[in-house]
């Protein structure tokens, strides 16, 4: 045992200096300093600038003014609410649906290739393009969604024009969008469960419902937790979906601001850089907390 360990140890053949490694790292460091480290520093500093003029680069001092401003801004609070609504509707529903589909796909079924194609295709297609398609499907007069509803005698709905319905339209598109990725994660989680447990349970005469509740679900619970956290992180950054469905605007009558949309709007269209940066830090802190949670879950998963 001891010997094996010694053999596997990483023997450096070159002296431990920065010389040669730096050559290999140079392009990476160059790009990441300009387009990752510098922006992070900028965001964190300009969020605390007071009366910042982006074009002139002047500011009067440091402080929490920007944070006070955004939390007093009804639009920002609305963006928090809208993002929250999107997250708490999309994540649980897509998780539940994905789990069902993944369990079904994990059976020995025919036409695997077809099902994989159908369920995973939205992963590779541009959100923005598919969003335009959904916009067409939500069309009040000629969209197929209203057509399907009319088959059941339901009155047509102003999916994208009614501020009360628009969040639901966004959620449905979001669920459709998140399904493939979630199914993939569940499938790889399911494949780590040893076939033996199922065989043993079947020999014991357990019915499939019981097998699901007593074996699959408990053994998959770390994956479920992980998937949900990842999806919460991803969905809290919702932007492209809104942009595509509502023609580049944050919903009907500007009712559907999300956090990223709020940041984008303040930075790109209004040049309120410090406000955008303060909002960005709020978003970053949320994502940061969730990521810590994710790493905690993952660590426990790894050591199982």
């Amino acid at each position: 045992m001891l010997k094996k360990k010694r053999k596997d140890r990483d023997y450096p053949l070159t002296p431990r200096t920065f010389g040669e490694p730096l050559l290999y790292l140079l392009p990476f460091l160059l790009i990441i300093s300009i387009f990752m480290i510098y922006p992070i520093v900028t965001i964190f500093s300009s969020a605390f600038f007071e009366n910042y003029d982006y074009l002139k680069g002047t500011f009067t001092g440091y402080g929490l003014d920007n944070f006070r401003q955004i939390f007093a801004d009804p639009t920002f609070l609305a963006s928090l609410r809208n993002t929250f609504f999107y997250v708490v509707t999309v994540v649980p529903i897509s998780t539940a649906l994905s789990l069902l589909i993944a369990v079904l796909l994990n059976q020995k079924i025919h036409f695997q290739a077809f099902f994989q194609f159908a369920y995973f295709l939205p992963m590779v297609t541009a959100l923005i393009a598919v969003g335009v398609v959904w916009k067409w499907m939500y069309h009040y007069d000629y969209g197929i969604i209203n057509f399907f509803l009319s088959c059941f005698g339901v009155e047509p709905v102003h999916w994208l024009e009614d501020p009360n319905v628009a969040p639901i339209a966004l959620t449905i598109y979001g669920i459709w969008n998140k399904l493939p990725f979630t199914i993939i994660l569940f499938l790889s989680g399911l494949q780590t469960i040893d076939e033996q447990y199922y065989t043993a349970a079947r020999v014991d005469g357990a019915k499939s419902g019981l097998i699901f509740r007593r074996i699959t679900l408990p053994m998959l619970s770390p994956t479920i937790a992980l998937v949900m956290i990842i999806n919460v992180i991803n969905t809290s950054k919702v932007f492209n979906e809104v942009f595509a469905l509502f023609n580049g605007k944050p919903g009907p009558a500007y009712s559907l601001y999300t956090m990223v949309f709020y940041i984008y709007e303040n930075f790109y269209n209004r040049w309120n850089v410090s406000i955008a940066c303060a909002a960005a830090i709020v978003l970053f802190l949320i994502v940061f907390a969730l990521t810590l949670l994710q790493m905690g879950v993952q660590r426990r998963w790894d050591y199982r």
Partner: protein
Amino acid sequence: MKRKASRVAIYALLIIGALTMLLPFYWMIISAFKTPEQIAQMPPLWFPTSFRLDNFEYAMTYAAFGRYIFNSLLVTVCNMVCTMIITILAAFAFSRLSFPGRDVIFSIFLGFMMVPFELVAITNYGTIVQMGGLDSYAALIFPYTANVLYVYILRNFFLGIPNSLYHAARIDGASNFKYLTRIMIPVAKPALVTIALLNGIDTWNSFLWPMLIVNDPNMRTVTIGLTSFVQDAGIRYERLMAAACIVVLPMIVLFLFARKYIITAMARGGIKG
């Protein structure tokens, strides 16, 4: 009997689900073939009466989608080449070479993965403006060629390659660089395919970054071309769907041919991404 019934139920559920997932794509494709009269028909026409290409022609000529495809292809390919080079070199340094604080430095970079892309993109827009790089291919290609996730995936793969292979190559007379190009890169082909696919799909579909950078119609990528087409051609949905087809179909074709690779790649990249 009961078993058979449950089998039927499973297939029924799966098929309904699959059709729901495919519906937007089907709807997009058939709409793209319709005439202005057919598009407004209720109940809708489920099969196109002819495969007329007028809408595609319109998109290609009046909206210059030919130019957009060229831009997107150029950006995707150049970005992929640069990303691969940068990723390979960095992953090699972080796995095979040794320098003081190597692993600590790497975990700091791993922390960067937490920073949402959207936030960085907005600030980077300012940087590009200062550099005078708006409406340039360079601005579309270079800023996102250093990706920590890809370095992480490849580094893990490199670490799995036995040390003895490295020692053997060094004894056989190879330098570090020769070892990287002749041994490590060929052995790491699966991981490299993963990264290339993730990166390629990502760049082709990227939207926020090109939207910030591009004003000049000649510099539009397909996704930007599509959104500006939406502004211009607003209610002509048959034309819009043809344009959407142009953006989406290359990825559908890619997915048809490389389905297994892409699914593996997505699962691998997913846990972190």
